[in-house]
């Protein structure tokens, strides 16, 4: 099938636009984060206590609305309006981002994740979707512990690695629209790679939560540390739970992705497991996440230590994505570079 250059041109333009829009959204999140009211550890502890004491829903639910809608409420403080704009901007960029991937797929008549550029872009898309889903869920009235406004402070930190990875994908890793090499012509690319993308995206998100957890814990242990920064983050329990629940949610998917890869390898390379560098590093990342889940169930390992392990897991995922594809020769050298 010939490549539709027009469509692929649109895709590229959309991609560039996406990066710019995410960048703007990120800055907006950071504005809210930096100039919004700091959630002082004291106030937080108070609300925690009241929650324990019986008034769980005491946190004002000023922002129980769907993300993406900017409502010019005159009484809302300015930074919060920035936050609202940030969410709107995120949704907008997500749409453009999706457009970019879809047109890339249409231009080449195949899945839009056939090389490292497309793969990186798709992972970022998943991370942003995960972020918006979380924000949406949190805005439902049943969630009392943390409001979506409080959570929004994380937005910039989710978008930061996303923008970096996107930028890297669009520059160093960029590959022109082209058909799949024979090695990748299999329906398993739908199954294995999409599962890998979804799990990478969500795990990226979980890793960010764990990093922020570590920072917040430092502040909570000693409120004099990281006063300006730490006090604005959601409390450590929220962050810890966020990291844990996303990891738990995605771990079976990630396991499935590896197993699907093994099934594909059996059809493509003659064995289902051969310690190819990519296989090895996926194994390492998986074991780190298994460690994380164990750590959460082992006395003395919860909290910071578990968070460290989760961060190691993310590091292994990134290593797997970038280093193994680019630097180490193996059968997975499909980066298209």
């Amino acid at each position, binding site marked *: 099938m010939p490549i539709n250059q027009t469509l692929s041109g649109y895709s590229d333009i959309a991609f560039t636009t996406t990066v710019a829009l995410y960048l703007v959204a990120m800055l907006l999140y950071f504005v809210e984060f930096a100039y919004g009211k700091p959630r002082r550890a004291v106030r937080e502890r108070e609300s*925690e206590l009241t*929650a*324990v004491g*019986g*008034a*769980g*829903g005491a946190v004002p639910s000023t922002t129980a609305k769907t993300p993406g809608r900017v409502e010019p409420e005159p009484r809302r403080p300015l930074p919060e309006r920035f936050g609202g704009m940030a969410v709107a901007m995120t949704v907008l960029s997500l749409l453009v981002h999706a457009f970019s991937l879809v047109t890339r797929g249409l231009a080449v008549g195949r899945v839009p994740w056939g090389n490292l550029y497309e793969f990186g872009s798709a992972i970022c898309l998943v991370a942003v979707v995960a972020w918006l889903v979380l924000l949406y869920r949190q805005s439902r009235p*049943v969630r*009392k*512990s943390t409001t979506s406004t409080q959570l929004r402070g994380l937005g910039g930190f989710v978008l930061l690695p996303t923008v970096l990875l996107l930028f890297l994908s669009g520059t160093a890793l960029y590959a022109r629209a*082209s*058909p799949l*090499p*024979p*090695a990748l*012509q299999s329906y*398993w690319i739908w199954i294995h790679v999409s599962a890998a993308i979804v799990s990478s995206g969500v795990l990226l998100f979980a890793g960010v939560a764990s990093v922020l957890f570590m920072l917040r814990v430092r502040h909570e242990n000693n409120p004099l540390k990281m006063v300006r920064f730490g006090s604005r983050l959601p409390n450590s*329990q929220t962050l810890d*739970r966020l990291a*844990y*629940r996303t990891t*738990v*949610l995605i*771990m*079976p998917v990630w*396991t499935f992705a590896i*197993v699907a890869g*093994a099934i*594909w390898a059996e*059809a*493509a*390379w*003659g*064995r*289902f*497991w*051969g*310690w*190819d*560098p990519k296989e*090895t*590093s996926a194994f*390492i990342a998986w074991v780190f996440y*298994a*460690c994380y*889940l*164990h*750590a*959460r169930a*082992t006395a003395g*390992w*919860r909290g910071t230590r578990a968070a460290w*392990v989760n961060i*190691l897991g993310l590091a*292994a995922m990134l*290593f797997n994505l970038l280093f*193994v594809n680019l630097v*180490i*020769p*193996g059968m997975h050298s499909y980066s298209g570079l």
Partner: protein
Amino acid sequence: MRGSVFSDALAFLRNTWRGLTSMRTALVLLFLLALAALPGALLPQWSTSRNGVQDYFDKHPTIAPVLDELGAFNVFGSVWFSAIYVLLFVSLVGCLVPRTGEYLRNMRARPVRTPRNLARMPHHSQATVDSSVDEAIAVARKRLRGWRVDERDEGNGTRSLSAERGYLREAGNLVFHFALLGLLVVMAAGAMYGYEGRVIVKADGSSFCNSGTYNYDSFEPGLRVDGTGLNPYCVRVNDFDVKYQPNGQPKSFHADVDYQAGESLDNDVWKPYGLKVNEPLRLAGDRVYLTGNGYAPVFTVTFPNGAKRTSSVQWKPMNMQTFLSQGATKFSPPGMPDEQRRQRNQLAITGLFAPTASFEGKVLSSKFPDLRDPAVAIDVLKGQLGIATGEGQSIFSIDQSMVESGKLNRVARENLRVGEQLRLDDGTVIHFDGVKRFVNLQIAHDPFQEYALVFAIAIIVGLGASLSIKRRRIWVRAGPTDGAARTSPDGSGTAPTSTLIEVGGLARTDQAGYGEEFTKLSGDVLGKSGHHSAPEDSHGSASARERNS
């Protein structure tokens, strides 16, 4: 004395065993496993990248031998890696056996008795309602359908329900861990009873038969494979077709093959198959893969005595982008009964082959991997090839020691396109007839791989169950309000009914999110039985306690 030594030793063993099977040890071993695998990703491995290791040796001549000695290029076969996973799996067994027993006992046991003080539970709410204790309990029972419920009469007209749910979580966890064990065993068995072989077959109707290891170019048997009793079948490669994009990237590979196996082997019927990348031929328990391709130039040599010999031998692709290939096609002169003389008059055509030739002066290179304008740049050598010495010789090259010792001499150097020829001084004519394609086939056999798949699926399912199911408990206690109980100690039921219902909940796993379910559940239990004072959820965000529990 001896008794105490013995019991000391026993205690030591017991402690060691306890330590080995503790969660903490499992965690540390898992961690070590990940770290130990790291060099396997960072450094080239003998098993996957022989050339990579060789390169590493060239680049780091001092440190490479040390690393090699440590097994860093053979991580997954190294003693230390094996030690870690063996320990891990011993620990796993030691952990699983008692847990399975406990689980089975748990399955049969009644849910835990309702604690005295439900207000102490992480989740708690209560209400006073206008219905009787019986009604309250009935409502609660109805609501707790799907839970394992046990009822107890606590006296004084007070009854309580204890309910538990989420037993499948532990089952899933056990399935998951057992399946890990199973997968390890099956992979080990596959490595012992499997084999892998490679063979090059010319795509001109040549065939390969899996009748013995001698038919392979290379053969890697498992420990328990001696190369006899292979699954019998034959594969014939009729044609091979590659399509390229304009930039030289391959678009598709397709080998047109026929095969015989089982019955068709006996009655000599060939069945067709289109062999492609990602679509191996599955035969009699073996799989045949298309893993590569290349070119075999065809030369016809006309010897001075008029005898003709045609030969085509695969030349090795040196560059996978352009398929510039290198090789050696060897001839023995016909019509020379004298062995000695024949040995001294052997002929070798060595050099480069380009599917799409590009000459820079006389230097040949290739512009494109497809056959557009094939040419060879050859040296013709005459003399003693050394084939008869009995030593195996690479089919891609000549024995350089023969050249160095002067037994083999270059007699011509020429570039030829298809149809061109070259005449040696002694009258021998070498004609470049054309090119054939060859395919690399890989044959793999692993009698256990289906089991591996079964265990892998069990791993996913078990993990999913274990991670998504929450083990949780709920207790409902309904009793006459204090006043009512006192005025009617016999609990005859005639007293004005006012019942205090208390609900307590506990999530037994490290999984936040029970709060929501509990709020709904307790609301139903308390709310549907009439008026009630506002239920008070004592821990709207229960995580504070859960974390410490």
